C-alpha cells in the first residue's frame, strides 16, 4: 500500500494539515526566514566577510530544520500512541484490517507530518543560503539526506518508546531522552574508526563536507582515516556519508521490526523482539562494533599510536557482550501472563527444564554466535600485539555467562511473583545486594584483587572481567570453586521459577461452562 493511500497517514494529514493552519505556518516561516537572512547578511556586511553569509545562513536554516524535525517530530511520535491509548481510540485501530506494518508506517510518517511541512517551509531559506554560499548541490542534497534519514530513525525510536510505555507518564520523555543521547553527538569524535553518528553531521557536511576519502599509513604501516569524512570499515577507508546512511537504515530496520512486532499486540503481551530476533540484534551490534573498532591505541609512554593489545580487545568485547547478553536476557523474561499461558498449554508434566531455565538457551546461543564473530575477526589478525591465555579467556567467558544466567534466573523468578512492579522490585533488591556486598567486602579489605577470595567472587562475579594473570595462577582453586557455586545459584533460582510456573497450572482443569453441553443453538 503506497504511503499516500495509507489510511493512518491520511488521517494524520487531514487532522494536522488544515488550510488555515498551513497558511499561517507559511506566513510566519517566510517572515522569520527573511528576518534571519537579513540579520545574517547585515552582520557579515558589517564585518566585511560578505561571501560567508550564505554558508552561515544555510547552516542556520538547516539547523532549525533539524531541530524542528528531530525534536518536534520526535515528540509528536512519542505522544502519538500514548495519546491514542488515552483517548481510547487505539483499540479501534487494532481491530481494523490494517496490517502492523501499514499501521506503523502510517504513524511513523503521519504523526510528524506537520513538522515535515514546517521543515519544508524553511527549505527556501536553506537553498538561498546554499546558492549565496556557493555550496555544491551534491553536498547540500547529501546533508539533507542524512538529516532526513537520521530524523526518521529518531521518530521510529520515539514511536517505539510510545508503543512500549502503555501507561505513558514521565517514563516516556525520560526514556526518549536516554535513547536519543547517542544521536546528539557532534562531529569530531575520534574514539573509533567511525565518525559522528548524529544527524547534525548532515548540516556539517552540507557546509564543509568533502567527497574525498582520505586514509594514510602510520609509522608502523597501519592505515588510519585522515579526514573528518572518512571512516575505517574493517580497516578499509570508506566515505562517511554512505556509512552513516547504511547505519541509519539498518538501525531503522531493527526499530521497525520491534514496532511491527508490537503494534497490534495486547499491552499485557508486549515483547520487544522474538528470541531469534534478539540474537540477531546482538550479532548486528557486534558486527558494527567489529567493523569500526580501531586496532590502534595511543601509547602514553611512547607518545605514539601502537597496534592494540589482544587482551584489551578481548576485554572490550567481553565487557560489551556481557552487557548486551544481560540486556537481551532481560528483554526475553516472561511475564505472569505469558507464563500462565505456557502453564495452560503444557500443563505440569509437560513443563521441562528448558522452561525452568528460560531464557538461558537463547542467551547461550547468542553468546556462541558472538564468540564466533569476534573470534573470526581477531583470532588470525597479525596486527594485534601481545598474547592471550586461551584457558583463562575461556574460563572468563564461562564464568561471566554463568553470572549473567544467575541474575537472569533470579529476575525471571522474581518477575513471576505477585506484585504491582515485580521487575522494578527485583532490580532494587539486586542493586541493594550488590551495593551491600561492595560495602562489606571493602570494609574487610577484600576487594583488592590480590586478596580475591571465594567470598568476593560469589557475590561479585564481575571481577572476572579483568583478572590479573598472576592472581589467576595463584588463586585458580578459588576461581574453579566459584564457578560451580554460580551454577548452583542458577539452579536454585531456576527451581524457584519452575515452582512458580507449576503453581499456575490449572489444578484439575477448568469446568466447562454450561454452554458446552447445550450451545446457544445448533447450527
Amino acid at each position, binding site marked *: 500500500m503506497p504511503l499516500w*493511500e495509507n*489510511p*493512518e497517514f*491520511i*488521517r494524520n494529514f*487531514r*487532522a494536522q494539515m488544515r488550510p488555515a493552519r498551513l497558511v499561517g505556518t507559511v506566513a510566519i516561516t517566510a517572515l522569520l526566514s527573511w528576518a534571519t537572512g537579513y540579520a545574517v547578511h547585515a552582520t557579515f556586511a558589517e564585518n566585511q566577510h560578505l561571501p560567508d553569509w550564505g554558508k552561515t545562513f544555510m547552516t542556520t536554516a538547516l539547523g532549525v530544520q533539524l531541530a524542528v524535525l528531530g525534536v518536534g517530530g520526535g515528540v509528536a511520535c512519542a505522544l502519538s500512541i500514548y495519546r491514542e491509548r488515552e*483517548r*481510547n*481510540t487505539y*483499540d*479501534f*485501530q*487494532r*481491530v*481494523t*484490517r*490494517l*496490517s502492523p506494518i501499514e499501521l506503523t508506517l502510517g504513524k511513523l510518517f503521519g504523526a510528524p507530518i506537520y513538522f515535515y511541512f514546517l521543515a519544508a517551509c524553511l527549505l527556501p531559506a536553506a537553498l538561498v543560503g546554499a546558492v549565496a554560499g556557493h555550496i555544491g548541490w551534491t553536498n547540500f542534497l547529501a546533508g539533507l539526506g542524512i538529516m532526513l534519514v537520521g530524523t526518521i530513525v529518531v521518530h521510529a525510536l520515539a514511536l517505539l518508546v510510545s508503543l512500549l510505555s502503555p501507561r505513558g507518564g514521565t517514563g516516556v520523555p525520560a526514556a526518549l531522552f536516554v535513547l536519543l543521547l547517542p544521536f546528539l553527538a557532534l562531529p569530531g569524535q575520534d574514539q573509533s574508526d567511525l565518525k559522528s553518528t548524529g544527524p547534525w553531521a548532515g548540516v556539517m557536511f552540507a557546509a564543509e563536507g568533502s567527497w574525498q576519502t582520505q586514509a594514510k599509513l602510520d609509522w608502523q604501516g597501519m592505515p588510519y582515516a585522515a579526514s573528518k569524512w572518512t571512516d575505517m570499515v574493517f580497516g578499509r577507508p570508506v566515505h562517511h556519508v554512505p556509512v552513516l546512511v547504511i547505519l541509519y537504515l539498518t538501525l531503522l530496520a531493527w526499530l521497525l521490526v520491534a514496532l511491527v512486532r508490537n503494534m*497490534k*499486540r*495486547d499491552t*499485557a*503481551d508486549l515483547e520487544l523482539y522474538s528470541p531469534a530476533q534478539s540474537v540477531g540484534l546482538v550479532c548486528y551490534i557486534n558486527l558494527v562494533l567489529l567493523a569500526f573498532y580501531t586496532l590502534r591505541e595511543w601509547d602514553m609512554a611512547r607518545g605514539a599510536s601502537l597496534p592494540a593489545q589482544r587482551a584489551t580487545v578481548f576485554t572490550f568485547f567481553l565487557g560489551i557482550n556481557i552487557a548486551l547478553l544481560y540486556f537481551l536476557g532481560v528483554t526475553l523474561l516472561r511475564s*505472569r*501472563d505469558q507464563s*500462565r*499461558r505456557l502453564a*495452560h*498449554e503444557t500443563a505440569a508434566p509437560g513443563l521441562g527444564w528448558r522452561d525452568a531455565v528460560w531464557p538461558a538457551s537463547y542467551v547461550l546461543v547468542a553468546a556462541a554466535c558472538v564468540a564466533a564473530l569476534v573470534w573470526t575477526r581477531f583470532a588470525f589478525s597479525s596486527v594485534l600485539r601481545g598474547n592471550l591465555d586461551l584457558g583463562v579467556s575461556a574460563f572468563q567467558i564461562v564464568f561471566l555467562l554463568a553470572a549473567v544466567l544467575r541474575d537472569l534466573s533470579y529476575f525471571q523468578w522474581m518477575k513471576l511473583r*505477585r*506484585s*504491582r512492579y515485580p521487575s522494578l522490585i527485583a532490580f532494587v533488591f539486586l542493586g541493594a545486594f550488590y551495593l551491600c556486598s561492595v560495602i562489606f567486602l571493602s570494609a574487610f579489605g577484600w576487594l583488592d584483587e590480590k586478596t580475591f577470595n571465594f567470598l568476593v567472587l560469589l557475590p561479585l562475579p564481575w571481577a572476572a572481567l579483568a583478572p590479573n594473570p598472576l592472581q589467576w595462577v595463584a588463586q585458580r582453586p578459588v576461581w574453579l570453586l566459584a564457578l560451580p557455586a554460580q551454577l548452583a545459584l542458577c539452579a536454585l533460582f531456576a527451581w524457584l521459577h519452575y515452582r512458580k510456573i507449576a503453581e*499456575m497450572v490449572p489444578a484439575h*482443569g*477448568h*469446568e*466447562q*461452562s*454450561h*454452554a*458446552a453441553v*447445550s*450451545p*446457544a*443453538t*445448533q*447450527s
Partner: protein
Amino acid sequence: MIHLERLTKEYDMPGGKSGTLVAADSLDLLVPKGEIFGLVGPNGAGKTTTLRMMCGLLRPTAGRVTVHEVDVERHPEDAQRYLGYLSDFFSVYEDLKVWEYVEFFARAYKMPPGQISKRVDEVIHEVGLEGKRDAFIAGLSRGMKQRLGIARAVVHNPPVLLLDEPASGLDPKARHELKQLLMELNRAGATIFVTTHILSDVEEICTSVGIMEKGHLLRCGPLETVMQEARGPRRVGIRLAAPGFALVQWLGAQPGVSGVTSAGAAEAEFTFSGDDAGTAELVRQLVAAGGPVCGVQDAGETFEQLYARLSNGETM
C-alpha cells in the same frame, strides 16, 4: 459463525491478593448466523473480557475464537473482515470531520476504493448523521458520537457485530433508535453479539441469550428455551367474574395443583405442574364445575426475575 472453544482468561487477583481471577472459564459457545445473542451478567462477570477476546484485542490464556472459520488470534487481519466492534466508551477523533472519520475506517477495513465514497454517504445516512456530514466531531452530542461509533463498526458491512454495552449512557429516544437500527442490521443478515445491562432490551431484541457470572455461563440458548428451562412449575392466576364459588377449595382438590393462595374473594394463584394443554383442560373443568372464569394469567417470571434468581441476587 462465532465459535468459542474452551475460551479462558485468567488474571491475578487485584490488590496483590492470592488466587486467580477467572474472567472467562473455559467457555464453549456457538452462535449461528442471523442470531442476536445477548450476553448479560453483573459487573465483573467477564462479559467485556470475553468480547475483547472475541475481537482480538485481548489474548486468551487458553482456548480460541473463530469467526467464519477464521481463527481470530492466528489470522487477525482476515478475521477483522467479518467483525465490526463497538465498545462501551465513545472514543472518536475529535479533530476530524464526520465523513473523514467514517472514510478512515472504510479505508482501514480495506474496502474497494471505488466503493468507499458511496458507502460512507450511505452509512452516514443510515445512522442519521447526514446533516452533520461536514461537521467536526468535537461538536457532536454524546448520542451522535455513539451513532458515529456504530457507523464505524458497520462501514465495511461486517456479517458479525460485537457490541459492548451499546446503549449505556444513551437517553430513551436514542436507545429506541439504536434498537431499531440493530434489528434492521439483523434483518439485513448481520449476526449480532451484544453485552448489556438492560434486561428489557434483551427480551425485546435478542433471539438467544447467555447469562454469565464469575466467568461461567450459567444459562445459554434461545431466549424461550432458557426461560422455559429455568422456569420450573408454572404459576397461574385465575380470576372469577363474581365471588360465591369456592375457588381455593376446588383448586386444592385438582391433581398437579399446589401452593394455592387466595388473592381476594374471586381470585387465586397456584403452582401447576402441567403444560399449556393441561392449563387449558383445568380451566375447562373449572367452567364446567360452575366457576365463572373471566381471566386466566400466566404469572411466570420475566427475564429480569429469572436473571435475578439465577445470579443469586447480585446487583446489575
